[in-house]
């Protein structure tokens, strides 16, 4: 088994303006090995996958494939070299058949006529599918297949490309346990035929079940690697989170007022269920979970974007059914969405117009915004509060850096004078200085008596900011932990549901 490496990544660094996504990382993959790449959200796993599949070009460092140094300019280069990624969201053509999907981009042609040789492609597909013991008709349209079977078709496509390295990014997130077994059977057969598999997952039980080797990244840095059989879960968790909380968080002395929001057994079909918590004025409630935990969905439901299928919400002592975003804003609930560019800002509008957008009602008289001075004054006041750096408030939002864009988004919401402020990943992808400003902003809001729900994938941020922490795992509420008592380890254990076993043995 211990043969020469198929793929080696050495000293790889990828810098985006203002952010080091990968910092001098390593990775070694051998043939016949299933290798887990482990890390929190934002650890750099996805960036590495994008480098390996030719989407990003690394800033520095080398990638060697079978001893030869390679550099991919695009996805096709990587495919031809034998690296294929199976994506989180299957990137397939739903209206085309299985055969057409598998041979998209590398159609077989008849040797003489140069016409597309569908017969040969269909036969080839049938052969590949039966080799993998898959019961899929090559002529079925992909839209008629289950998510699991689409994954299988993607893997089949990888084989048809003669892939040597198959990258699976969270392949089981949408699968039932039965389907996971099927997937693992195929992973094992890939392994036996000498392929290397890079397996990215948050689920430890799966990693322990299928993987031979693991590598841990944290904050874009290489932390360590080892054999799965020789390491304990605890050890790996420590590697994932074991940073010192070197960043300082602003002092925040909780001054809690009366209870403002009570959520009881809230559920949304297919997204989350059994979420219950209460929130007091001036409190910061951290909402933690890994990708797919359902945190954003909870926020959207409370803010009236999505409807709850079950459960009750009591807001300011009265039963509350969020009808729409407009309705919730009027009641004093604000949601700062995760994706600033797609949900937070109108990029083609000026900063002034972006910031005043949620409060136009207050700034206008009978629908008319006649007093430009009032609007500019309002914008300036809140913009300065957030210390936005821009050429002026007349420039379009799209010209700003990520950090400043985020400040604009926050400035937008201060003026709505929310009673409950929900922040979804407010510091994602922004520089350290802005991060500190955002943290200060959150504490200021809490000090003014605003109840804050802070959704974050960054454990130190959650630990440093929250009065209490609600941890979710795959749509279920795992625990509510007091911020003072919470340690990185307990929170992470709940988030990867490692605690289930413990509870079972206790009970």
């Amino acid at each position, binding site marked *: 088994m211990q043969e020469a490496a198929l793929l080696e990544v050495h000293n790889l660094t990828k810098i985006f303006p203002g952010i080091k996504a990968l910092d001098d990382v390593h990775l070694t993959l051998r043939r016949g090995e299933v290798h887990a790449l482990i890390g929190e959200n934002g650890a750099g796993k996805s960036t590495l996958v994008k480098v390996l599949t030719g989407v990003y070009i690394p800033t520095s460092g080398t990638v060697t494939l079978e001893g030869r140094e390679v550099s991919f300019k695009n996805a096709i280069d990587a495919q031809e070299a034998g690296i294929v990624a199976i994506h989180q969201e299957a990137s397939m053509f739903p209206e085309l058949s299985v055969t057409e999907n598998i041979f998209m981009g590398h159609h077989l042609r008849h040797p003489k006529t140069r016409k597309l040789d569908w017969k040969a492609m269909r036969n080839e597909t049938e052969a590949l599918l039966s080799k993998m013991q898959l019961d899929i008709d090559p002529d079925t349209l992909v839209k008629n297949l289950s998510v699991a079977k689409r994954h299988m078709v993607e893997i089949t496509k990888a084989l048809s490309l003669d892939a040597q390295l198959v990258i699976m990014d969270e392949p089981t997130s949408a699968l039932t346990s039965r389907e996971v077994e099927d997937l693992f059977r195929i992973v094992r057969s890939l392994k036996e035929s000498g392929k290397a598999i890079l397996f990215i997952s948050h689920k430890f039980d799966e990693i322990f079940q299928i993987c031979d080797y693991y590598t841990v990244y944290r904050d874009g840095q290489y932390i360590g690697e080892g054999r799965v059989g020789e390491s304990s879960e605890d050890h790996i968790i420590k590697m994932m989170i074991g940073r010192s909380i070197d960043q300082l968080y602003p002092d925040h002395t909780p001054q809690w007022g009366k209870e403002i929001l009570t959520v009881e057994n809230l559920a949304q079909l297919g997204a989350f269920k059994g979420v219950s918590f209460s929130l007091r004025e001036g409190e910061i409630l951290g909402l933690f979970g890994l990708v797919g935990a359902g945190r954003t969905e909870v926020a959207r439901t409370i803010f009236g974007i999505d409807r709850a299928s079950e459960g009750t919400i009591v807001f300011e002592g009265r039963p509350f059914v969020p009808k729409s975003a407009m309705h919730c804003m009027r009641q004093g609930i604000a949601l700062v969405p995760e994706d600033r560019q797609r949900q937070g800002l109108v990029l083609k509008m000026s900063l002034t117009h972006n910031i005043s957008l949620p409060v136009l009602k207050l700034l206008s008289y009978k629908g*008319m915004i006649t007093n430009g001075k009032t609007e500019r004054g309002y914008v300036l006041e809140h913009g300065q509060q957030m210390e936005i750096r821009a050429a002026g408030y007349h420039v379009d939002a799209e010209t700003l850096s990520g950090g400043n864009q985020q400040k604009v988004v926050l400035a937008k919401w201060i003026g709505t004078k929310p009673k409950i402020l929900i922040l979804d990943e407010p510091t994602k992808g922004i520089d350290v200085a802005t991060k500190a400003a955002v943290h200060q902003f959150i504490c200021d809001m809490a000090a003014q008596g605003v109840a804050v729900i802070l959704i974050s994938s960054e454990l130190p941020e959650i630990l440093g900011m929250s009065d209490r922490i609600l941890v979710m795992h795959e749509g279920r509420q795992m625990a509510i932990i007091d911020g003072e008592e919470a340690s990185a380890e307990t929170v992470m254990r709940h988030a990867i549901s490692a605690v289930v076993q413990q509870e079972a043995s206790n009970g």
Partner: protein
Amino acid sequence: MAESSAKAFVQRAMARRELTLMMLLVVLLVPITIRSPLFLSPSNVNRILNDMAILAIVAIGEFFVILSGGIDLSVGSIIAFTGMVCGMINESYPAISPFVLLLIGLSVGFFMGLTNGVLVAYGKIPPIITTLGTVNIYRGLTFLLSGGSWVTAHELSVAYIAFPRNTFLGVSYLLWIAFAVLGVFYYFSRYTRMGREIYAIGGNPTAAKFVGVSENKIRVVVFLVSGTLCGLAGALWTARYASAVNEMATGFEMQAVAACVLGGVNFSGGAGGIIGVALGTLFLGVVTNALPVVYLSVFWQTFVQGLIILIALALNTISDQRKHRRMLAQRRA
């Protein structure tokens, strides 16, 4: 400080489509005027402006639809239907005041726009499909209403036909109306909450939803504005051309869209301004009227219009892409 803000002002002005268009217009006018000094004579300018007035009114309605991220292909048919309604009413009641006819045109257009808007907002049919349907339905209604016959000049009242040509302070009523529409909707687009929300919906419907802007309401409003302005245009059209013909204003949607595109209105929504649309309309008018001056037959008219639209769109796209690349370089992807 003053110097840097002055510099910023110049940069801002340069980046604006309105200014580039104005300069282009001047560049275009210089050789034309050299060739034919009478081109810029007051009477000729007045003629060009009157020629473009109806297009300007319709283009402003089209502007709001495009701004919201949609398109209204039914404008020509709404003009035809309302024009026919006004013509036939005038034929039956010659004593009716032209003002009443304008009001009738406005109201009929209002309901036709409302139909478009409701289909788009609540029927969830994309604007291009909705108006592709209604462009034919409204044209068909025109034929059904008229039974295929025309209302000719001698069947219309003198007062109605004279209405657009009457002058106040030396300027025709038609132009006054066009300027009034321009002013009102300039204000509407810039200084009302609704106007701002149209920009927001066109620029980013998701972000707009997160701040509580009602997308359905905006979608109805933009078609309502477009339909109502087309109704006004229809009433004026019959008077100005002194007849109501079933085929009138066929293909007018293309000119309205062209005026918007020339005026720098972003085709995917969210950016552009009324002044740009007005200049775009004027640009089309100057080019059309200049053709005889440069000895090109009027048969070239549609060809040249098409060419200009393509060039304008290509320029828009190129400058957008450049801007985008510059920004990507500055910022994390």
